[in-house]
């Protein structure tokens, strides 16, 4: 049972380490999906939101982590 629990924890840990990062990525994907539905004539808008949103999330998370670890 312990082994199964460790395996499940390991499986979740594959994708979620910093919960905030995971949530922000999912939020960016959701936003891209909404924009694809609302403005289907500009399909690249969703792509741009996805790409630059994820880059922004990464930078913001690194900045936050740095501040958190220093203070």
């Amino acid at each position, binding site marked *: 049972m312990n082994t199964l629990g460790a395996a499940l924890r390991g499986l979740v840990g594959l994708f979620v380490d910093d919960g905030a990062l995971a949530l922000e990525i999912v939020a960016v*994907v959701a936003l891209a999906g909404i924009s694809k539905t609302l403005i289907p004539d500009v399909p690249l808008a969703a792509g741009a939101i996805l790409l630059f949103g994820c880059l922004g999330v990464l930078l913001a998370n690194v900045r936050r982590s*740095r501040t958190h*670890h220093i203070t």
Partner: protein
Amino acid sequence: MGSLAHAGTAMTAAFLASLVEAVEALTIVLAVATLRGWRPAGLGALAGLMLLVLIVLAFGPLLDRVPLHLLQLAIGILLLLFGMRWLRKSILRSGGVIPLHDEAMAFATGTAELREQARRHEARLDWLAALASFKAVLLEGLEVVFIVIALSTSPGLLVPASAGALAACLLVAGMGFVVQRPLARVPENTLKFAVGVMLAAFGIFWTGEGLGVAWPGADLAIVAFAALFLAVARGAVVLARRPGTTVLP
């Protein structure tokens, strides 16, 4: 041209990611072998490998039943979560915000844990040693399986991705067998940095495809995404750097 670039990137990403995972699994297996010999270490590792094969055989065919767009979206999101997690951690390690992963220390910790378990459960020690080896191979192996499946979302990529992963696992197993100690010199953080960049690029591509985005340049867009992620990640390392710390990758 696009397909070749795609296959090459998939193979490289699978190779590098599997290299990191195989080194981590090898460290635990070697710790077990050092303390209790190769029999429990080898049996545990073999059992872990067999369970992995069963998991792939059981769940692999189910993937064909999932609609392609849904599969691309799900795999894309998982790749983004996985790749960005690795990228974030390697950026913070490169900037000196969090300590580097040390295989020699992981080996020492693994050995110490087994000794402590030995003290408490002397009679069951071989079983516990085999279990530690089994868990290491299973967990790290699951990561390898996920990476191979995730990188094989488009037709024709299963073979290059599997070949990349298999080559990495054989290379690490061979080196481990020869040197019989943890591969502490593998530049793990640099590898995780590179793989994080590639997986995040694949993640953006597949998530976009799943959402119905027609990327300019089709498969070649992955190379552009990887270049952009690399540039931003390098900038993030500078951003994360603590005063007086040397930037690593």
